[in-house]
């Protein structure tokens, strides 16, 4: 497989920055998985499609809107009715394409089109609340769930992948701009890039 170059380029500068009076409040990393794919069901096939994703990934995917799951080898979350973002190891797209027949739905490999930026730490909810008009509290946004939203015109799909951790999937071509925005938003709490 051709090795991908990070879209962050020179904007990715490991170190600690901003207001470090109470230590870095968040840690920012690039967490782009090897494979990112979108699976979308034709009308009436949403249940079959989520079943196929479960079979391929070994995850148990709840049916509710915005639901998702974080597993050891893969993650998946709902990004619209009958549509899921699935990410994981090499070969995942091929396996999904094999499991999801053309009359059930479509699988689009987005591995080279998206970047995942990870924000983790005690102030992660605070920093994200400055960028998105969403409720990031654990009660409203539990671990595993996903939200499709936008920061100005930068489309973002966000999954809570841990108690204090979120992965933000953005278009690769916007990743550097959004990364710089994320760094600027985290100046107040102090941040570590690694």
């Amino acid at each position, binding site marked *: 497989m051709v090795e991908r170059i990070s879209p962050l380029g020179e904007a990715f500068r490991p170190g600690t920055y901003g207001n470090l009076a109470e230590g870095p409040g968040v840690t920012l990393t690039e967490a782009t998985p090897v494979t990112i794919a979108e699976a979308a069901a034709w*009308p009436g096939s949403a249940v079959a499609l989520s079943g196929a994703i479960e079979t391929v990934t070994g995850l148990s995917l709840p049916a*509710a*809107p*915005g639901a998702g799951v974080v597993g050891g080898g893969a993650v998946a979350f709902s990004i*619209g*009715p009958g549509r899921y973002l699935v990410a994981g190891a090499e070969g995942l797209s091929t396996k999904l394409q094999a499991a999801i027949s053309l009359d059930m739905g479509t699988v689009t490999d987005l591995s080279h089109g998206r970047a995942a930026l990870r924000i983790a730490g005690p102030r992660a909810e605070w920093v994200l609340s400055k960028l998105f008009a969403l409720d990031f509290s654990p009660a409203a946004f539990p671990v595993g769930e996903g*939200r*499709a*939203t*936008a920061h100005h015109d930068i489309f973002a799909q966000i999954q809570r992948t841990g108690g204090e951790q979120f992965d933000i999937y953005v278009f690769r071509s916007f990743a550097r701009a959004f990364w710089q925005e994320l760094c600027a938003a985290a100046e107040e709490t102090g941040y570590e890039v690694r």
Partner: protein
Amino acid sequence: MLIPCPHCGPRDVSEFSYQGDATRTRPDPASTDVKAWHDYVYNRSNPAGRHSEYWQHAGGCRTHLLVTRDTLTHEIQAVAFARAALNEGAGKP
């Protein structure tokens, strides 16, 4: 103004794009009735009050929605998926 998307829950109007009047009915494509086509393409009733319109949650789940909105107060009175079959079993996250 918040629009309660049936999939995503309440979201700011900036995530949505307006897709037009939902009260129009397209004439039969084979029709050559000029008045019917003229009305369909150009004429709008512009009501002051309850109005039915299409919106797309373009900055979110990307579905098209059928929204009933009061044009005087911007109160959203009802929201449903434009594709009727999606409304069965719909719930908020």
